[in-house]
């Protein structure tokens, strides 16, 4: 998994880095509310120097989806 992604998920959602897996998602993570979601997106954007489109932002609600989107953007 992308290290920047793991660090962002861990710090924004208050999860230990070891506990972040591809299965981690908005559904199974109570701290992943809508504001935390935007915060997470902004953190990833800033640290990787990328920018997601608004339609993707709403879809990217799991670590697996984020991982894929990041690699599609070449990072």
């Amino acid at each position: 998994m992308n290290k920047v992604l793991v660090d962002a998920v861990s710090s924004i959602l208050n999860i230990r880095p070891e506990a972040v897996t591809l299965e981690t998602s908005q559904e199974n993570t109570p701290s992943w509310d809508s504001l935390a979601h935007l915060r997470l997106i902004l953190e990833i954007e800033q640290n990787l120097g990328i920018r997601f489109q608004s339609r993707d932002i709403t879809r990217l609600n799991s670590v697996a989806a984020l991982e894929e989107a990041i690699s599609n953007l070449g990072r």
Partner: protein
Amino acid sequence: MKKERQKSTLRIALLAGSNLDLLEKPLTARLLEKEFAATIWNPGFNQYRQAILDPSSGLYQEKADAIVLYLDAADLFAGCLANPYDHSMAEIPAIVEAARADVASLVGIIAAQLASATVFLNTLSYADLSGTYQGLEYNSGFSFRQIVVSYNASLRELARGSSNVVVVDVEALVMETGIERWYDPRLWYLGRIPLSAQAHGQLASEYANFIAARWGSVRKCIVLDLDNTLWGGVIGEDGMTGIQLGHEGIGLAFVDFQRELLNLEQKGILLAICSKNNPEDAYEVIRKHPAMVLREEHFAAVEINWTDKAENIREIARRLNIGVDSLVFIDDSPVERQRVREAVPEVAVPEWPQDPCESRRALGRVACEYFLKFDISEDDRRRGEMYHAQAERERLAESAGNLEDFFRSLRMKITICRADHETLPRVTELTLKTNQFNLTTRRYTESELAAISADEGCRVYWLKLEDRFGPNGIVGVLILRRESREQWLIDTFLLSCRVIGRTVEEALLGYAMREMKELGATVLTGEYIPTGKNGMVANLYGKLGFAQTDSNEKRTLWTLDLNQKSIEVPVWFEIADRERISAQ
């Protein structure tokens, strides 16, 4: 490493027409960097009006100290934005006045319930308005910009008219950042958050700077390197004609940087020099170089030698009688910056651009971060000069035979008055900034002090000192509270560090004592609250003849029986303005 400055927790209310949730974290983080612990109460998207109007809202329950009331053009002029062509230039004054009156009334409601709170308002930017108006602005009877401009101008009167309003120029931040980077439409449509991640960071820094400055956290002195900082090149190698300073090429960047420093000096910020050089080489530039903007009289302290800079910086603080945590050190050399950061961590050492073209802008950022002021007092304008005179006093002290001769030779003249509308800002500044000669270190905002001075059971005195070397301005504050008819308590007793060691405290207390007696007081109680910085006055009351009545870790209490003992104004003081005092 953390400084041992103690500050209580600030309660901040975040009220906005939009979603400012993302501001919470960076704002508390930036305040913590400035050693302010803060809690934030945020009622959420567009709840500002309810929060202010409802007397049982969290705003009042939490007793907020600082209220950020963040409104943008879309919140205040929604109607005009929706129908941009429906209003004419002639209607604009009324449209703006309605918005101004609305904001003023909200501020008034807050002030009525939270008398000592400060409301931070913001200027609007024109930037979030559509480009479809382009061409019409300035060329037709239509204008939206005029609404924004007049509203912003009206904020000035609001801030100047009430001591609990401070305006943050957010429009200037938007200009600096650029519209495209300030707003993030994705966040707006997904979360009703208008601003970008970057804008939240900048806004948090700006509000943290303003809040910290409002609560007295402002530094006092800029310590400057010379070679490649005040001028280009190395004077010891390049000589007077070889250094870059003047209107040719890059030399102008150094002239402009010095001009900006001079502006800060006139705002009351002290300038000092800390440079590794032969003093005669450096002084030749300072005194004789035709393009130097800053001259000897602009520097409150000068250390030009080959000693370690950390040591010189401590010496500068000692000579100016201020803490090292009041200093900001500017040097182009990363090695010197690192040395000072490690050896004297209390000194703020900003990163400094290698390219002198960037110095002026870098200084602007330093000024915002460490030297923010909301007004310039007469004292500020003369501060540098006063410190310069201080050096001459020290020379006199060294030549005088004994202390009393020295005091007499100073020809000190004091004025002591009760605080009024004109003097409150300076009195407030002293309660916020004085650390060393300060018995209780109670920090008061201007509105709190206005309330105290209007209270019949209180007396707020200030002392102004002049001597043969010129005026020192208002340098002492004494606040007394009546406990009972016979008994008064010294709530606040402080002196500016620049007059310490001249028996001014006796003059101030001795003078107040006369008035206390006239009011029928027989017992005066003094309190000493240790802070880690005010050790020099731990035994002041004892020295003045008070008897210690209570002592624990947090404070010691002292009383003086006015029937048994009195404190007199020392004979070497001349008391000025007698008529004015007795008339009060």
